[in-house]
């Protein structure tokens, strides 16, 4: 994943006309960078470079600042993500209950590392600081669904249930 590929579109051209509408409510206001990036990501699923360029022009904020903010916060993704997002909890409770073994097993099965997407765009593997469902540790979320009290041998079956 080189820098050059960051923010590039997945399939052909992006429809950028939405950017103006997303940015509109934030023009001439204070402290808008993060909510604008959140809106763009909500719309496109990640932060496409052309969308950031357009937003920077509309907001009259240097692109370098948008990029600096976008790469600072874990929430923002510069690459398209898979259909299913796996978020393995890295919280303390999960860690001492063997959470790292869960991520390792997923990596083995899907043959990707954390923050990577399977070539078929089916899964993206991510880590999250803490879901706060410590009673279910170790836990992971796939999309909005929590899977708790995991052991490595349960992983394969869970992954198989996603399309």
């Amino acid at each position, binding site marked *: 994943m080189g820098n*050059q590929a960051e923010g590039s579109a997945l399939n052909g051209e992006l429809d950028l006309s939405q950017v103006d509408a997303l940015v509109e409510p934030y023009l001439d206001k204070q402290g808008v960078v993060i909510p604008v990036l959140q809106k763009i990501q909500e719309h496109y699923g990640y932060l496409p470079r052309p969308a950031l360029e357009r937003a920077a022009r509309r907001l009259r904020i*240097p692109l370098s*600042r948008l990029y600096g903010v976008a790469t600072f916060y874990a929430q923002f993704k510069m690459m398209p993500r898979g259909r299913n997002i796996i978020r393995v909890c890295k919280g303390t409770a999960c860690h001492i209950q063997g959470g790292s073994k869960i991520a390792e097993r997923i990596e083995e099965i899907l043959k990707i590392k954390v923050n990577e997407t399977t070539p078929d765009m089916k899964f993206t593997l991510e880590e999250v600081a803490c879901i706060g469902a410590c009673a279910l540790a170790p836990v992971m979320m796939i999309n909005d669904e929590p899977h708790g009290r995991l052991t490595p041998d349960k992983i394969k079956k869970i992954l198989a249930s996603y399309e």
Partner: protein
Amino acid sequence: MSAVKLTIDGMPVEVAPGTTILEAARKLEIDIPTFCHDPELTRNGACRMCVVEVEKARALVASCCTPVAPDMVVHTDSERVRTARQTILRLILANHPLECITCEKTGDCRLQDYCYRYGVSESGFQGETKDLPLDDTNPFFIRDMNKCILCGICVGKCQEINGAGAIDFTRRGFVTNVSPPFGDPIENSSCVFCGMCVDVCPVGALVPKAGVGKGRPWEIEKVKTICPYCGTGCSVYLHVKDGKIIGASPDAESPVNRGHLCAKGRFGWDFVHSEERLTRPLIRRNGVFVEAGWDEALDLVASRLKESIARYGPDAFMGLSSAKTSNEDNYLFQKLVRHLGTNNVDHCARL
């Protein structure tokens, strides 16, 4: 408001409220090391080199951004302070290529100076180091971010002073970097090549191309002059070695430019020693330019002017002056043109 009295290294000092410990110490000629401090920019406090011990404070404080308080007792060179500074230097060295032998910055590098001052010759840590691509595609300067210590002054200058906003911090933690958006080369960014970042870089991360391999800082004579590119009259130091200009830097004291220069004044000196540079007048003879003497050329211009005015009247001719000349020259030029009988005089910068 009344002055604040405090003690620094056993010496009493009185300063205005709001003064930083660093400024107060400088008043006493105590040299506190800094990487990230720049009086022009928002207080930063990032490098922690300037930490000092303030009695009764829990931890060391950054002198560059801590204001003085009444009866403060400050130690700028205690064992605790020296240990912290040595640790910081060792941490920098652990992630900084030790290429001092060939580094352009050698001799004018604050990292080198401070390591010398605090007796730090190696990091003592083993581990991951930066491995970032060199950005040298532009004609003016080389960006080697592996040498960057992330003091952030370049970012401050670009965002707060110049306003070009070409670079900013990217990512965070150990992989934090300073870069144009999307890691593009600086050439493809909104950079206007004012060179301010290059001037303020305390280490060898930003180096002008023109001087590479041409001389060490201590071999260079800095000659103060006025930039000839335009009428602004920026004060500039030409870096001269063996009678040749190998670089330039702005004059921070000049009331005209106060340490700023444009891309031309900062980087555009290669023409001086260019073989293609015109050093004598050329006269076109039978469609070909031929070298001539100054008197010959001036005589030719004068005689042609006289001929034209005699034949077509003075309004048939106009004078166009250059923004590269000084105000005084421009004044004399319009005098000359008016003396020749026309008001047709203009200036290339009057857009």
